[in-house]
């Protein structure tokens, strides 16, 4: 009884809210209408291009007949839950992206530290070089790794000349190290971007005090600087890990490690076409990214994880 009453009450409240927003009489209602008008275009596109397709993915993953979208079955989810190969893909993705994130953030701390603490003569150039790759899509990153480590690659040829080996044996672009460097190439600029922002805000006086009191540089960094930049490191890890999960172009070209994006691509290709499994993997993947982001946001400020 009371449940129904409260339900009707809340429906009525929403209806009143909607009607006063549509036909406002007070200034507060007018402001609410303005906010609604301002947000409307974005949410219209988000619903058409984002939410409806995602809902459709749920339907596909539960459909018995994926061509006509008829019937209901849990087959795709069962396959996903019981096949060990999919668990392996998930594990592959997590450790690989996690490792790439760790390396990128560690290097990002070094770069941000040097840019902020040392007076470098070419600082502008370093900043430009470190932020340029943000605009490069994954396929181009893959090509750049081939330029370095491919059969005609720069490093490959240099090592071949130095050691007298054959370039073909030394090429590692399509080995897992090549892919790993590709991930780092994409992620390092983002980590550095976040960490530079954090470094710009820290209080240099505490470090000076520590140095004056006789702490070595490493002690100062470990006991004074590191606690201050910890929020930045957490933000960088969240941003980098999330970006790393979404990398597809690099792995499509280099194809040396089966991560989730490559697996989704596999499930939608002609040979092994199974859209229901692809949809199920996609949903798990999106749910993981959203959950990870929201859990991560609890530990840092919202605007530290932007882009």
């Amino acid at each position, binding site marked *: 009884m009371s449940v129904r009453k409260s339900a009707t009450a809340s429906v009525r409240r929403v209806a009143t809210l909607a009607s006063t927003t549509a036909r406002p009489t007070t200034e507060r209602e007018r402001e*609410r209408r*303005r*906010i609604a008008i*301002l*947000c*409307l*275009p*974005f949410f219209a*596109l*988000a619903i058409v*291009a*984002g939410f409806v*397709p*995602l809902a459709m993915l749920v339907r596909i993953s539960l459909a018995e007949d994926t061509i006509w979208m008829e019937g209901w079955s849990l087959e795709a989810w069962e396959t996903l839950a019981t096949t060990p190969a999919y668990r392996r893909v998930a594990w592959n993705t997590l450790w690989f992206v996690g490792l790439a994130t760790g390396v990128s953030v560690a*290097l990002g701390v*070094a*770069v941000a530290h*040097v*840019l902020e*603490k*040392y*007076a*470098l003569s070419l600082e502008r150039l*370093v*900043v*430009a070089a*470190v*932020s*340029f790759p*943000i*605009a*490069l*899509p994954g*396929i*181009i990153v893959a*090509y*750049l790794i081939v*330029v370095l480590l491919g059969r*005609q690659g*720069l490093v490959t040829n240099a090592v071949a000349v130095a050691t007298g080996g054959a370039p073909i044996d030394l090429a590692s672009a399509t080995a897992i190290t090549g892919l790993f460097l590709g991930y780092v190439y994409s992620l*390092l600029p983002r980590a550095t*971007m*976040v960490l530079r922002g954090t470094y710009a805000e820290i209080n*240099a*006086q505490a*470090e*000076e005090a520590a*140095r004056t009191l006789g702490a070595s540089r*490493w*002690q100062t960094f470990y006991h004074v600087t590191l606690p201050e930049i910890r929020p930045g490191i957490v933000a960088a890890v969240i941003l980098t890990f999330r970006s790393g999960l979404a990398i597809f*172009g690099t792995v499509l070209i280099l194809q040396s490690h089966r991560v989730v*994006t490559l697996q*989704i691509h596999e499930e939608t290709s002609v040979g092994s076409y199974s859209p229901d499994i692809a*949809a199920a993997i*996609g949903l798990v*993947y999106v749910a993981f990214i*959203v959950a990870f*982001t929201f859990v991560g946001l609890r530990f840092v400020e*919202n605007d530290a*994880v932007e882009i």
Partner: protein
Amino acid sequence: MTGPTKSDESDGDPGSAPGTARTDPRPDGGATEAAAAEEWSRSGTALSTAIGRPLLVGVVALVVAFLTVPVIVTFVSSFAGSAAGVVPKGFVTLEHWRQVLGFGDHGVQANAIPGLAFSLAIATGGMLLNVIIGVPVAYALARYDFYARDWVNTFAILPLVPGLILGIAFVQTYPDHGRSALGLLAGYCLLKSPYMVLTVQSSFQSMDLVRLEESARSLGASWPRTLLTIVVPHAKRGIVAGCVITWTLAAAEFNFTYMVASGSPDPFAIFLYRNISNATHLQSAAAVSVYFTIVVAAILVLQLLGNRGFSTAQR
């Protein structure tokens, strides 16, 4: 102009005290024992003092080399005649660029120009649509404090759904129209909208919106008129910067395009993919260099606008 000056400040401030234990002048203005302090504050014997700086500078040099050398080598070798051996030889030839752009007698694509034009047109369309959807949301988030503001903010600035998944979902949901220019347009717009919202938002946050709006309102302007003729023009720089960023990133958006594109004509991202996956090394270099030139042009425009570049976070 905020970008360069801001970074100058941040360089200059700690740059003057790069860990060398600068002693602050005494607050009463008297002379400090600077010389003595200099002597005992240096713990020169610590290992990290001796090797820390060279080591870190070495790491940074390595990182910078890793990030820039392949880009430079790609661009330079796109003008080379042959790539056999350690370094490319036979400069300068425009042969690869001609093949990539469809003017040569062989190459992956007979004529790449229509595809490029198509993709650039779609990127432009997505950019314009982004102005329409992104600027109002950015204004609402910067100006008003409302229920669920944090949620709207999170949705508007975080790219939560990867382009690959969006592409698959799109094609399955709209089988008739998904693989069309319209589908690409909507996808590019949604995927790149965070960049627009963030850039415009930071430009709104730097102005006194309430006062600006109230002055205009008190002089008799209606709210829509205030918004369109006073507020938005003030954020012009931010909007243009957001346009440059969204356009450049949309032009080469690969993950979504790969899933959605129908192949007639080939968008720019697919053009890159074909040239990278089944062309000669130097021809790929030329194809990739096409995008480098776009990015460099975009960065130069952003510099002129006083924006820091593609990094929209951390204003």
